[in-house]
């Protein structure tokens, strides 16, 4: 990682805690990383805190959770002390987020076009005609063949893949600097998964935005991102270049790589991950 490229996002000491009868419980612990306008993957199993990290970066930690960071910057803006209004102004315009299932993240009673224009209305002064033109244009960029028809469609009329494209369109219409995709394909069919991923890939390259891809699927993230953060129980335990995954140093990362089945391992037992309590401590 060269220090000459300006950082798009820098995070230091990001911690998310939830109160409990036994005192505050941290679900994200002291997470620090920096990224430029490239592709960063965050990988972890359930309970690793990867989704909560994404939410924290959008200022969307659900109450009564609390987010703290010693340092949190997007470009030249300091996000650490941002109030709710400040976050609202940021979301959609500078940071976009794609969630797991378009079935739940799209408003079921509004046409796709209206939902795209909604974002434009919130953040800018466009005329009605401009908004419509922009909406149709962005639908075309996400690879929808008949954007006019999509503009008028309701979410339930769309397949999972099409719904996710619509979601991406909503998030991209304001050309954010950073796109956070939290398990964007895990509700989709395997084949459609590839199409959506390559769409995100293409858009990232064309627009030069930063992308954080969050998933439990290590091979997928490795295929897609340049650099991977491996999370375990709220902590980043290893940061590794995707191309050097086989040289992972942390036993957890090694275990995640080794336990994957494949036709070549047929009939043999897969190595089982032995978890070490020491992994949960800060190193």
């Amino acid at each position, binding site marked *: 990682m060269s220090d000459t490229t300006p950082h798009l996002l820098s995070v230091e000491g990001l911690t998310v805690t939830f109160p409990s009868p036994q005192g505050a419980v941290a679900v994200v612990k002291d997470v620090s990383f920096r990224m430029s306008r490239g592709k960063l993957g965050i990988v972890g*199993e*359930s309970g690793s805190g990867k989704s909560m990290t994404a939410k924290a970066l959008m200022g969307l930690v659900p109450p009564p959770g609390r987010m703290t960071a010693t340092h949190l910057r997007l470009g030249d803006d300091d996000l650490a002390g941002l109030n709710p209004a400040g976050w609202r102004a940021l979301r959609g315009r500078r940071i976009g987020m794609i969630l797991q299932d378009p079935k739940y993240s799209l408003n079921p009673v509004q046409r796709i076009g209206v939902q795209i224009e909604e974002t434009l209305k919130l953040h800018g002064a466009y005329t009605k005609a401009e908004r419509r033109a922009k909406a149709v244009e962005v639908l075309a960029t996400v690879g929808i063949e008949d954007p006019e028809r999509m503009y008028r469609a309701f979410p339930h009329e769309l397949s999972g893949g099409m719904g996710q494209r619509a979601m991406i369109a909503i998030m991209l219409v304001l050309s954010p600097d950073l796109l956070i995709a939290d398990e964007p394909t895990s509700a989709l*069919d395997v084949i459609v998964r*590839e199409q959506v991923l390559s769409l995100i890939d293409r858009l990232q390259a064309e627009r030069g935005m930063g992308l954080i891809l969050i998933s*439990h699927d290590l091979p997928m993230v490795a295929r897609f991102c340049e650099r991977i953060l491996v999370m375990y129980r709220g902590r980043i335990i290893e940061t590794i270049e995707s191309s050097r995954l086989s040289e992972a140093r942390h036993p957890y990362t090694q275990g*995640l790589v080794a336990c*994957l*089945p494949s036709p*070549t391992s047929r009939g043999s*037992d897969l190595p089982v991950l032995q978890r070490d309590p020491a992994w949960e401590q800060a190193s």
Partner: protein
Amino acid sequence: MIEVRHIDVYHGAGATRFHAVRNADLTVARGESFGLVGGSGSGKSSLLRVLAGLSRTWTGSLTIAGACMTPGVKPARAFHKRVQMVFQDPYASLNPRHTIDRALADGLELHGFSDIDRRIAMALDEVGLGPSFRFRYPHELSGGQRQRIAIARAAALEPEILLLDEPTSALDASIQAEILNLLMRIGRERTLTSLFVSHDLSVIGHVCNNVGVMQQGEIVERLTADDLVGGRVKHDYTRRLLVASTGRSV
């Protein structure tokens, strides 16, 4: 062990009738582990449910574990002892109000087993869970532990055929490895015949000797495990599945 001839499966009726499986042919020999792979809506789960005797809206001829099934007719109870199934979602396939003990005892009592107490203890032991799990409720268990219970429930009946519907796709990779190891060990020790359904060719390739690829209700390609290792696939859809699950293009 399993003979599927010209089977068509339908869902719903009238104008909304959906042709889920078209003219499927399949033969699985005793002790073999056969994999059905395909995307969502490919009909693989629909076909599996017919084999499990859980779906009645089909046509064609089907012989499974020596029983010749008739479309539209509910199979006899004894059929279910010989053919058991494990479902995809370990959070949904166990009754949240029943203890693990009850979940295991139900099937054993139903099929007239004796010394149920001992069999439950053995079944738990076989799937690597100790007696301490016996009187817990499903919500006290992790996803992987629940899937072990579901496997124990099926295996306790000493079936000849085990049908597996995406048994690991709701689990983390490290837990998936443990469950796959467990399934393969049970298959080896008991010479079970199994039919494994998944969208993930790398899982199927790891477990199965023979593979059928399904797309939109049809079996479009048949492969052996060696074909998969050698990348000898012909159909474009199989190729795309292979890329999707292994990242390897052939």
